[in-house]
């Protein structure tokens, strides 16, 4: 039925006329602000207009250009609900109008004209203002999101994703000029997919957990808290509307072990809308918990398989929202499809097989937020870190315990960034058997619409042991507007100001049941804010980072959609936690090998086994845990973008940047928030700090490489796939291994021809470590190197006047030779010659010590050479004098170290009477040391 809502039509009807009914046009002004030059500009804006109903023939006009209007809702006729138009300078901008449902019209504007060829290069110098007019659509509210590319193109980040704007803009978002009666309903809906590891290792005990607290049980508790926070943050608020998010938000669930499986949250689907019921039959708290409860850990680990399945299921949606994947895993991937870089390099990550084979992870255009349970450094942690950074996601890793809970919750905050959820305060401690926990005192300011408190505690026998006590700033106990209790968690919310006034609230953990407990219980308590006006996002600029290179932390802060610039000094303080020790050094120093199988019989990689062993015996986890450094970073600001650089990355491993926001500003009042982001800093080896040692054998050689940096960090084991070794053919690399699991990699070179000296080029993460002939690399025990000795004997033949009195005799020489290059050598020669007198009644000896330069010609095992030199000569009978020699010869290598040599030399020795001149023809052998 066509509604008569326009007064003109109503008057026409009242007058008996037949004028068609058209509702009054609504005109909006869309403003796309210029963002600071250090961050990408908004390239796409999507607006979903909500209406009580949409009349036939809805019209959309953008920047004065009337679009071809959709004629029917998609629910009626999918072929007629979606139209495209162009507008703006040179008609380069694109507008899409989609009549999604009888009550919703979506408008997406892509602002191509503000960019040069791609979305990393913007020409926008001023705020862009665009008029949007609707007719026959009486919007009552709208949801909106702005999008940009993840990062700009820089020298250190030369190939970001520039052709698709998919990252939601946090601050400096586009705004829609206010129209009476048209409310901003919040953000556009999201599809958050949990991708959970259920491989066999998940049955292992939780490192640092209470007795009986398994990884699987902890994961269940963590996910429940995640879900509870998700539901309560987006629950029904005091105005009867969603506090955070949209009823059309969806949660998805995928498990993976050897292969992925669907976690069916709805009939035949891994997804469930936020607005739908999440209840499940007891004892499960909700449908997600019910799915986890029906599974048990087993199998191998295929992270790629899990992500691929999430992607396939999300793409299959006919009404997909912007996706975010939250990936949890506790072990290194060992089952294809793998997520791996191109061989020997670090980026970009690709799928190794499956339907997405060779697809770059970044080309999923989906932020992937990773949560790792394991060592906070090493290949496993670095991979998860890289997955997140290549996809504009975030990475968090923990060795276990309650931080798994907080990591999940924090990743939900990250998933919603560009939206409205943030962390106000957190406490982690043990609740003593007597009394209550220390009060958490979050400052809940007036910009917050809802506060959600999450309490989680360690498992084992502690089910339903703790609860929450919440008091408002006046000290009055407050009943939360919603509360959810699980075996190991409680999540409760209060609304501001309905539950109490803005101010410093008090929240603490209290005992509910401790009858059988005999020890304090570790717990965490976090306070989250559902923001009404404040918005911020902290990121680490995704540049290749390693030890010795700076990490840049960037914060975009906004309030009421505008950049919050010129905050008071010290408003944003960033503290750094740095690893206590480098994991590689600990692993290199220990000869422990670990168990080939975990406690539940699961085979595990040698590196993981060694880490587990050292975690038990040498306090490894604690030693590599980031520790606070004194002071805070110097923060600079430009246009509401705050940046700080930390360059003391002298230890490899996990760095944590703890952000404290605490300011009082006329625009915002008092604000107090906290945030933590993490970044892996791998060891970047340098040639000077990398140990290399060669062992040569017949036809082969082993090059031992221990990559290290100038700070004394070694890379450690588990990085053999980052090596790229090239040798001169026909020699070849047979393999690279780390037999001792200590980060000393054995590069096996075979098929070396006799006497050959193949050139060896070793790179790690694309950085050259060595590039030299094998003989020039440092030689180890039993190897052959640049030094050799020669021993020759033969005849000595006098010439000229010397020949008159003396007959030929014998000669013997010994030398020590140092190869300066592949063709030039220097040798120190000692020799003795003896000549018989022509009369046969006496002998004359010539003894020499000479320095010679030797020029080798050709290559291979037979090497002709020229030589010449000078030195001291003793002639007996005669004087001590000097002389010179010049000659040529042949050297034939019989093997890697032994060769035979023959040489002719001519000698001229100065003497007071007759200058002896003679030649020697000698043969002998040469032994490479």
């Amino acid at each position: 039925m066509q509604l008569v809502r326009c007064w003109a039509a109503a008057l026409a009807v009242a007058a008996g006329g037949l004028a068609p009914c058209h509702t009054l046009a609504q005109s909006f002004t869309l403003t796309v602000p210029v963002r600071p030059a250090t961050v990408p500009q908004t390239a796409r804006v999507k607006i979903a207009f909500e209406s009580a109903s949409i009349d036939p023939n809805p019209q959309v006009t953008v920047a004065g250009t009337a679009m071809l209007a959709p004629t029917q809702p998609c629910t009626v006729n999918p072929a007629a609900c979606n139209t495209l138009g162009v507008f703006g300078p040179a008609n380069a901008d694109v507008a899409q109008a989609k009549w999604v449902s009888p009550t919703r019209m979506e408008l997406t504007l892509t602002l191509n004209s503000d960019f040069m060829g791609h979305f990393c290069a913007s020409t926008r110098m001023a705020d862009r203002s665009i008029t949007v007019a609707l007719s026959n659509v009486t919007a009552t509210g709208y949801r909106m999101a702005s999008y940009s590319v993840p990062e700009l193109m820089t020298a250190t980040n030369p190939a970001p994703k520039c052709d698709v704007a998919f990252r939601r803009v946090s601050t400096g978002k586009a705004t829609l000029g206010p129209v009476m009666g048209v409310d901003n309903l919040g953000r556009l809906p999201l599809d958050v997919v949990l991708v959970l590891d259920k491989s066999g290792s998940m049955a292992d005990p939780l490192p640092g957990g209470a007795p009986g607290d398994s990884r699987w049980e902890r994961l269940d508790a963590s996910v429940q808290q995640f879900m509870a926070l998700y539901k309560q943050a987006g629950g029904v608020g005091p105005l009867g509307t969603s506090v955070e998010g949209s009823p059309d938000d969806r949660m998805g669930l995928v498990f993976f072990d050897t292969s992925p499986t669907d976690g069916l949250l709805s009939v035949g689907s891994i997804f469930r809308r936020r607005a739908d019921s999440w209840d499940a039959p007891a004892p499960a708290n909700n449908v997600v918990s019910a799915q986890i409860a029906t599974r048990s850990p087993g199998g191998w680990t295929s992270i790629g398989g899990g992500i691929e399945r999430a992607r396939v299921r999300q793409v299959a949606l006919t009404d997909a929202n912007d996706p975010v994947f939250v990936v949890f895993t506790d072990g290194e991937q060992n089952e294809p499809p793998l997520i791996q870089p191109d061989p020997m390099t670090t980026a970009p990550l690709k799928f190794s097989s499956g339907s997405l084979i060779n697809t770059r992870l970044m080309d999923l255009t989906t932020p992937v937020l990773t949560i790792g349970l394991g060592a906070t450094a090493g290949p496993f942690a670095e991979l998860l870190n890289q997955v997140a950074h290549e996809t504009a996601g975030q990475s968090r890793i923990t060795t276990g315990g309650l931080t798994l809970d907080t990591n999940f919750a924090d990743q939900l905050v990250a998933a919603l960034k560009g939206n409205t959820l943030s962390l106000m305060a957190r406490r982690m401690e043990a609740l003593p058997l007597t009394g209550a926990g220390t009060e958490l005192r979050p400052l809940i300011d007036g910009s917050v619409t809802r506060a959600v408190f999450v309490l989680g505690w360690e498992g084992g026998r502690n089910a339903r042991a703790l609860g929450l006590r919440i008091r408002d700033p006046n000290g009055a106990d407050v009943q939360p507007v919603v509360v959810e209790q699980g075996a190991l968690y409680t999540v409760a919310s209060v609304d501001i100001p309905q539950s109490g006034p803005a101010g410093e609230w008090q929240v603490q953990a209290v005992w509910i049941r401790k009858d059988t407990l005999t020890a304090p219980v570790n717990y965490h308590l976090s306070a989250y804010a559902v923001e009404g006006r404040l918005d911020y996002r902290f990121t680490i600029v995704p540049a290749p980072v390693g030890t010795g290179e700076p990490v840049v932390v960037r914060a975009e802060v906004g309030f009421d959609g505008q950049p919050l610039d010129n905050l008071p000094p010290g408003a944003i303080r960033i503290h750094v936690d740095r690893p206590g020790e480098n994991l590689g050094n600990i692993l290199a120093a220990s000869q422990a090998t670990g168990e080939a199988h975990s406690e539940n019989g699961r085979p595990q990689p040698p590196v993981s086994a060694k880490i587990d062993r050292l975690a038990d015996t040498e306090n490894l986890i604690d030693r590599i845990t980031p520790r606070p450094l004194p002071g805070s970073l110097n923060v600079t600001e430009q246009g509401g973008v705050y940046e700080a650089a930390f360059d003391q990355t002298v230890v490899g491993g996990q760095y944590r940047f703890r952000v404290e926001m605490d300011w009082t500003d006329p625009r915002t009042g008092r604000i107090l928030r906290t945030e933590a982001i993490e970044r892996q800093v791998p060891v970047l080896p340098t040639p000077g700090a990398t140990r290399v040692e060669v062992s040569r054998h017949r036809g082969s050689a082993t090059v031992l490489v221990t990559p290290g940096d100038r700070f004394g960090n070694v890379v450690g084991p588990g990085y053999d796939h980052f090596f790229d070794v090239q040798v001169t053919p026909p020699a070849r690399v047979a393999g690279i291994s780390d037999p001792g699991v200590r980060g000393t990699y054995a590069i096996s070179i075979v098929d070396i021809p006799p006497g050959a000296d193949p050139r060896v080029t070793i790179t790690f993460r694309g950085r050259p470590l060595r590039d030299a002939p094998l003989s020039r690399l440092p030689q180890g025990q039993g190897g052959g190197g640049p030094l050799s000795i020669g021993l020759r004997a033969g005849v000595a033949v006098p010439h000229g006047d010397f020949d008159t009195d003396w007959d030929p005799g014998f000669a013997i020489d010994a030398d020590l030779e140092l190869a300066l290059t592949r063709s030039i050598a220097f040798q120190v020669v000692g020799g003795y010659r003896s000549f018989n007198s022509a009369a046969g009644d006496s002998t004359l000896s010539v003894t020499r010590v000479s320095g010679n330069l030797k020029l080798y010609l050709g290559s291979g095992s037979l090497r002709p050479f020229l030589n010449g030199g000078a030195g001291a000569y003793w002639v007996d009978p005669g004087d001590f004098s000097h002389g010179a020699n010049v000659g040529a010869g042949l050297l034939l290598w019989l093997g890697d170290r032994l060769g035979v040599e023959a040489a002719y030399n001519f000698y001229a020795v100065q003497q007071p009477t007759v200058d002896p001149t003679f030649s020697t023809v000698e043969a002998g052998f040469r032994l490479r040391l």
Partner: protein
Amino acid sequence: MAPIPHVQPGDLIRATDMNALIDIVNALEPGPQTGATVPNLVGRTLGQALALLNQQGSSLAPGFAIDVFGAVVSPATPGSLTRLVIMQSPSVGARVSLGTTVDMIIAGQGAGGGNPQPPPAPTITRTETATGTPTTTFRVGDTMAIVGTNFSVVAAQNTVTFDGVPAASVSSDPSDPSRRLLVGVPNNIPDAPADPDDPSKSGVVVAVSTGGASVTTTITVAAPPGEPQPQISGFTPTAQFVGSNVTINGANFSTNPSRNIVRFGTTNAQAIVSATATQIVATVPNFSDLPVTSGATKLAQISVTVTNESGGEIGTDVAEGNFTAVRP
């Protein structure tokens, strides 16, 4: 029809007479059943000339045939059918009434009669393009002209080879059949270039034989012309939904859709809907990196690659400006 009387200056002409004149003139103009054009019989054998005049549909009839000595030549006389017509009346191209007879003068026989003399040895003066530009370089597939003397006016009697390979085609220049041959350069000359990038082959021996002696000349054979490169002049619309069509305008596209590869960035078009030499209609592919959310967009440059029959690339052109793909 009664004879039309002559008229004198100052006479009035009756309409009837005038119309009769008009009818006669009209009968001589080309058109169905209104007259005939005399064909060229010169250079043909008597047998060919008779066959041409007697063929079904011909509106003319053979007249007398005499040789240059005035002797009547009878088709029944052995060897007469191979003697050449050297003159005819009416002349070639004349418009005549239907049923007109064509008289022929036939070449004489040598002494001894009966056995025709071997044709005189041809000579080659020069080679030139079909349009008359002297040159000695021709591309494979070209039609070249060989100018000389004593070529057989019967094209089939001229044998032309290129390094021993028969010409692709041989015909006599109608305007000068005995002195100008039009010859197609074959594509299978040994070692002759095949691709535009191949070097030319010089010293290719062109031999012309008219049944007896032969004469040769040498030419340079160049590669056949490369196929024209595709060119994109524009596309429309500049933004389109995934799964919908884009029209690409330009030139030198293949009319075989399967030989046009349309790419959006690095992704092939979902389908080629149609293709002409100047226009391709292609379907926007479902990019793997285009977010699945409705309204998501991706910038991509459109390119067209035209391939040959074996799949080899003839050329590629990239359109100026970005195309915007939109998720429906």
